[in-house]
């Protein structure tokens, strides 16, 4: 049973690699994020394949997806839905918005106003939305994959820390390697390939996997290491603030999934090291502002300074 699930994930991963060439690491991180029941934030310049990755994930995981392109004049009702008066029976009827799906692709989330951004907040954290004083439950599982442009670009509203914290991971795709790019230019239409992607898992499989990942054994040595890492972000002069307890839990959850994807039933420090940057990169801030992507450098510093063995 375990094997079939694992094989399903591997199939999904391989399928995605066909549409997103040379990005095995990012694909695996994205899968880890979703399998850990977390929301994913993909941050990169336009045209790097963010949407392709999000669509592909929805396909291979067999999730019913909706896409919302965020613009600066968007209102919360455009996402959540709106109550409309029906003259026929003299009542208001709620017309569900795009948020009612299993995987919501929120494209360019930082192009919209904070008001609309925060409408997503409840959905992400509580799994429900409120409109006109009435709460509506969202389907299960429910994922948000948001993409955003780097904050230095024009016309962006940076996501506040509170909202960044709701994303389990933040990844960026980056430019492809030259030989990969050549392959991409020679290759066919990725859009058509997207539609041909086989569905490798069902929503039920996802819930099973999540159950299995939470059972991965974390020894005290690993927990100590994780704690040392978090403590370092709190004590060190390099950070203006450290990782929150929620950040620590997110790190452990993601590392467990990563270990499970490796076919292991126990955690090793490498699992934490692999997911460290995506999980805490957007939850820390360097003491001195040295550019928007100081996070990666800071995480490298963190890894170099904290001894694995204690």
């Amino acid at each position, binding site marked *: 049973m375990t094997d079939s699930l694992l094989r399903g994930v591997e199939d999904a991963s391989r399928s995605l690699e066909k549409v997103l060439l040379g990005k095995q690491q990012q694909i695996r991180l994205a899968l880890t994020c979703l399998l850990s029941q977390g929301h994913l934030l993909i941050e990169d310049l336009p045209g790097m394949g963010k949407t392709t990755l999000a669509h592909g994930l929805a396909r291979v995981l067999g999730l019913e997806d909706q896409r919302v392109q965020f613009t600066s004049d968007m209102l919360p009702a455009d996402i959540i839905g709106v109550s409309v008066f029906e003259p026929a029976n003299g009542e208001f009827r709620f017309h569900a918005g795009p948020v009612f799906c299993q995987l919501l692709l929120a494209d360019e989330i930082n192009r919209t106003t904070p008001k609309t951004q925060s409408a997503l907040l409840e959905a992400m954290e509580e799994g429900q939305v409120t409109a006109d004083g009435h709460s509506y439950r969202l389907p299960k599982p429910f994922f948000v994959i948001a993409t955003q442009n780097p904050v230095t670009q024009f016309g962006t509203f940076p996501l506040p820390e509170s909202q960044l914290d709701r994303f389990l991971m933040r990844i960026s795709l980056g430019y492809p390697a030259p030989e990969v790019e050549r392959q991409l230019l020679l290759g066919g239409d990725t859009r058509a390939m997207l539609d041909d992607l086989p569905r490798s898992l069902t929503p039920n499989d996802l819930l099973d996997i999540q159950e299995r990942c939470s059972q991965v054994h974390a*020894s005290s040595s690993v927990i100590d290491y994780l704690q040392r890492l978090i403590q370092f972000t709190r004590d060190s002069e390099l950070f203006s*603030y*450290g990782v929150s307890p929620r950040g620590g839990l997110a790190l452990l959850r993601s590392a467990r999934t990563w270990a499970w994807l490796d076919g292991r039933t126990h955690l*090793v420090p490498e699992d934490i090291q692999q997911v460290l940057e995506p999980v805490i990169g957007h939850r820390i801030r360097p003491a001195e502002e040295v550019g928007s992507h100081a996070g990666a450098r800071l995480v490298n510093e963190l*890894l*170099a300074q904290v001894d694995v063995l204690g």
Partner: protein
Amino acid sequence: MKQLSRAAVIWQLAAFFATLVPHLSWMPFWLIGLCIITPATRLMIHSGRWSLPHWSVKLVLVMAVIGGLLLTFTRETGVRATVALLIAGLALKMIEIYHRRDALVLLYVSLFVSGTAYLFHQSILMALYSLMTTVLIVAALNSIYQDPLRNDWLRPLKRSLRLVGFALPLMLVLFIIFPRIGPLWSVPLNQNAARSGLSDRMAPGDISQLTRSNELAFRATFEGPVPAPQQRYWRSMVYGHYDGRTWTRLPRREQFRLAEVDLVGDSEPLAYEVVYEPSNNPWLVALDQPSAAPSGSFLTKGNAPLRYRPVDRRISYKSSALLDYRLQPDLPEYDRQAYLQLPGENSDPRSRELAERWWRETGGDADTFVRRAFTLFNREFSYTLSPPALSGYRVDGFLFDSRQGFCGHFAGALTFLLRAAGVPSRVVAGYQGGQWNEDEAYLTVRQYDAHAWVEYWQQGRGWIRVDPTAAVAPERVSQQADRLFADDPAFLSDTPMARLRFGSGWMADFQRQLDALNFSWHRWVLNYQGQQMELLKGLLGEVNLARLGLLFFIPFVLVMGVVAWLQLGGRKRSRDPLERALARLLADFQKRGHPRASNETIQAFSQRMSTHFPAMAGELRALAKCDEAVRYAGRPDARKALLAAIAACYRALKSSRAKEKRLT
């Protein structure tokens, strides 16, 4: 800006206030106000209710403080003005702490200011207090390096206690061997201008002011039998010249011509030691009559001790006294004339007339003359601390009109009468009495024990000491001043707390104990420089710079070594034999030029090493597998296998080195 935590702000305030406390007694009121307002402002700023002051506000404050300092300390340029300037600077710095750097300035200057407290007080309590202040300041220093989000209150204090604890042995070493350098500059304390210390002039009324001060004058221990209260006349100055208003020492040109002191005594000299408080004056005290000059001083022609330099810090000296003596049984004509000086021909006519009448009636006998004066004093005069002010012919005014006064009045008047009758005489000023501490066997003499008495000269008998005050108020001489004056409202009127000292019960007892403790502290700690040389000689044989350096260096290295061991070595050594074996293996790899990076697990490290040492790839793989099983997979049963794997790796590494050696 690096935010400071709330705890850090509170610690800074605590350090600041602790620094201030020893200075409160002399700080002007406006400065105390400033030192309350600025920390309050700091709190308001920190809590976000107020914003940091505009530069114009700060400018106005600085101008106001400079003005205040100039006005308050116009006639002083000394220590108090300087310390007040520092304190005002500290207070103002409080409201402009933007960066950690600013807090550092505040705390470093606080350390300095807390050191200046020793310029004003040197008791053992002060030493303990300043140690506490140091702990507080170091705690504040610790706290400003604390993460602002980790608002831990006790951690800075704990760390500070540890740091100061480590510093204490070094402090002791420095105390014992650091050379005592004389004061590079003389510190003009100038704080007693208006109230204490003997003066080199005596106008009636002066000493009644003096009596109000309970400040410590000196303390003494005796190496023989303790002299009776009536014998405790501590000689400090001899006034030989009277100008109708003020008694002063004889003019210098006259002093040169006076005969040398000739002291004849049959009894054994009584040796004693005095711990003398700083007075900023050159004169010392010596028990009547000093047979040898205290070290660092000489005896004047009036047989009073005088120091070459003013006493600007607490000193101790040894001297000896003859209680039975004849001082200058022969006096040359010049001296006799000098001690008969009176102002003009016509001053105080009534007194002169009285003296002449008495001289006739007593048949020219000085002793009877003095007894006569004593009888008059005893019957008609009263002793008071607040006599009426005198003007015009002061001796006449005192003898015939006011008829009340203090020792200065009586001594001056009697000397005047004796001189008018043709008997050489002079006023001696100093201290009389003191409080005997039975437990510790020493005498405490305070400024209210200041006294003046009379010496007159008789052929063959020399200078004879008489105390006219004893005639009018014999208790003054046989009792301590504090008992005698206890009911007089003027006595100690400017130091209300001092009255507690003379109460009975545990409070007085406690005071005496504390005083005794302070005395030992002064004798053994503050005056340590005398013993230092002897101690060093005993320790080193010959004192030279190299040995002194070594003596300092060895404890320094020892302390630093202990600190380093605690900080670095002591913690890392693991008890687990497995960890120890692994550490040894890793150290071996490091020696071969392959240190483990701190973010490398044993698995990653083994993998990297197997590319460097392909021959031992198998052992390394086993090591990685066993380590993972024990460390991460929760299988303690694999410990044995891991130990074996480590040993195997160790051996493989050794043999690979041997092979390399053979090849080269």
